[in-house]
């Protein structure tokens, strides 16, 4: 993989990652205790378990390599990690 392709991948990645960071409080209101899949600056799917989320992403026909998956902890919990 050439560095140019890596940079393209980073650009796409940073867009989704930044979406999660900037909207974290809102995501915590909307998806507490859930796994979410993010692509193109939107939540593509959500589920109670990682396994269910993978099924949801597969159902919409999105490649797992093109999404970022995050667990959104519920408010009111102290998360060590």
């Amino acid at each position, binding site marked *: 993989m050439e560095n140019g392709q890596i940079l393209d991948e*980073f650009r796409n990645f*940073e867009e989704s990652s930044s979406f999660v960071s900037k909207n974290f409080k809102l995501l915590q209101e909307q998806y507490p205790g859930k796994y979410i899949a993010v692509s193109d600056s939107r939540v593509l799917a959500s589920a109670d*378990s*990682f396994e269910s989320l993978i099924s949801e992403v597969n159902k919409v026909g999105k490649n797992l390599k093109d999404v970022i998956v995050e667990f959104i902890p519920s408010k009111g919990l102290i998360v060590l990690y």
Partner: protein
Amino acid sequence: MIFELELIDTFGAERVFLNLISRQPHSFGKIRALVDTGSPNTIISAKDCYLLNLPITGAEKGEPITGFGKGGIPSKKMRKFSLALKSSDNKIKDLNIPINVVDITALKSMPEEYSNHVYSIPTIIGMDFLRLANLKLVVDIPNKKAYLESAD
């Protein structure tokens, strides 16, 4: 070289994330990792192990990963893991470092509730990463900035 980090405010508590790309053969992809100076080791999460389809079956057994609570999370040790970082001036820094990976094959035989909890833990960037990559960590909460700086 400066590598920007994402500083997230989660209801009055901050967390710092680093975006990485795995350059492992056949396991190219994104890793959104939590920077945790309380962790001595860097750990690839169960979630990222699955999403990258890391070939861990034949990998050497690693030490169990432990924190709070009883028992440990099974791991595999990868002696050389290829990662890329992107600097703020769009340069790529390549790293080849030893890393522990959550053994997702062992999780299959564990209770669903435990396994689901393990999948919620993100990839952790530990102190070994900063040492091996020769990086300085700067976290400036008042100015909402965080970055890694290469000492090379």
